[in-house]
């Protein structure tokens, strides 16, 4: 299948960001864009801040639970962005929310599709997953830490591009939209939306971010499976707070709060 490829020239054309996308790279293939971005941050500290790495194909893309994540060459938007900061963890949770909100808005701006965020930062259209985000961080030289926001958004896939076992749980912009899909515009918007939250002089205000996230959150009452301290719980969401966690009505009857830091959606 031949889909239009990304080029650096096309992505940066008209890109007006202050921090994100100061340097843009497009790779034909990468183990994962997060790996490339983390390595670049280690190699060239300082100049790596704001670097955006795109790849047409990932040979070792990572998803939840270390699952390998596959997409046909050129079908998804695969992007990682580097942020450098002090080696402290206080804002780690906020970055994952920024990434979700930015990806959600980038899709809205370029496709007319309004995806919803499933805690903490997966993109859903109805009950089908459109994209996901994985943030990784690594300590680098001089007491700094490199944060890498990695996003994968399904663009050109048809249903038969997804493996049969996830076909009814996955979707793409092509499937959802009546408009032609422009992956380059989506790439540019991802950088612009992230820049709005992360450019110099912008305080990452937790309250503002929280309400932006809640505005885009999918409705409550959906089935959820969580792992908490090594055990799996199933139920329906009763309440959500992006930073505090999920209140879940468990299938066996109890209602229980799962705190954000220790719970994983499985």
């Amino acid at each position, binding site marked *: 299948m031949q889909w239009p490829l990304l080029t650096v020239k096309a992505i940066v054309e008209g890109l007006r960001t202050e921090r994100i996308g100061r340097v843009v790279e497009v790779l034909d293939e990468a183990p994962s864009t997060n790996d490339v971005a983390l390595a670049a941050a280690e190699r060239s500290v300082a100049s790596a801040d704001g670097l955006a790495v795109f790849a047409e194909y990932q040979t070792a893309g*990572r998803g*939840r*639970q*270390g699952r390998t994540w596959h997409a046909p060459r050129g079908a998804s938007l695969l992007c990682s962005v580097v942020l450098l900061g002090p080696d*402290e*963890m206080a804002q*780690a*949770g906020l*970055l*994952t*929310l920024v990434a979700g909100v930015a990806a959600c808005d980038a899709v809205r701006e370029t496709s007319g599709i309004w995806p919803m965020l499933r805690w*903490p*930062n997966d993109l859903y259209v109805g009950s089908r997953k459109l994209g996901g*985000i*994985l*943030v*990784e*961080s*690594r*300590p680098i030289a001089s007491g700094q*830490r490199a944060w890498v926001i990695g996003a994968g958004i399904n663009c050109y896939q048809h249903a038969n591009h997804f493996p049969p076992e996830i076909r009814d749980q996955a979707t793409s912009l092509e499937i959802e939209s009546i408009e032609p899909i422009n992956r380059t515009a989506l790439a540019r918007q991802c950088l612009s939306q992230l820049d709005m939250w992360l450019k110099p002089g912008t305080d990452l205000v937790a309250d503002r971010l929280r309400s932006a996230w809640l505005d885009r959150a999918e409705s409550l009452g959906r089935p959820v499976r969580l*792992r*908490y*301290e*090594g*055990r799996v*719980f199933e139920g329906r969401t009763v309440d959500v707070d992006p930073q505090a966690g999920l209140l879940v009505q*468990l299938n*066996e*009857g*109890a209602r*229980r709060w799962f705190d*954000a*830091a*220790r719970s*994983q959606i499985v």
Partner: protein
Amino acid sequence: MVDIEKIRELVAMMVEHELAEVKLRDGGEWVVIRRGAAAPVVEVVPQAVAPSPAPIVAAPVAAPGGAGGIPEGLIAVKSPMVGSFYASPDPDSTPYVSVGSMVAPDTVVCVIEAMKVFNEIKADVAGTIEQILVRNEEAVEYGQPLFLVRPA
């Protein structure tokens, strides 16, 4: 003295209702029962001098190898955040370190994850890993010792 039958009943109730922790005041004693992935843990916390008002939260209990529990001559690598502990980069890989591994200050020893943010944690000390104090995927607290290192 806390009735052992009562504790048995409570543990059964906790299993039935998937509860992680129960705190019970019994006369002069506070009993905290926690269920992890392994067997339930019962801690009896002697009550402070004043009998009332009752504490809302049980007295903090030192984590294994916690402050004061670190053997002399060893240094603890502590978690910089609340989250889940991962010993390896992904489930199919070998752990970053194991007992006997030599580490430098910038050696990555584990990943701590919270809200799908995976953070590599470095040793910050040079030496040999003497003990690993947490299991893979276990929830960890801020400042909780993860490894004991014999400094080089």
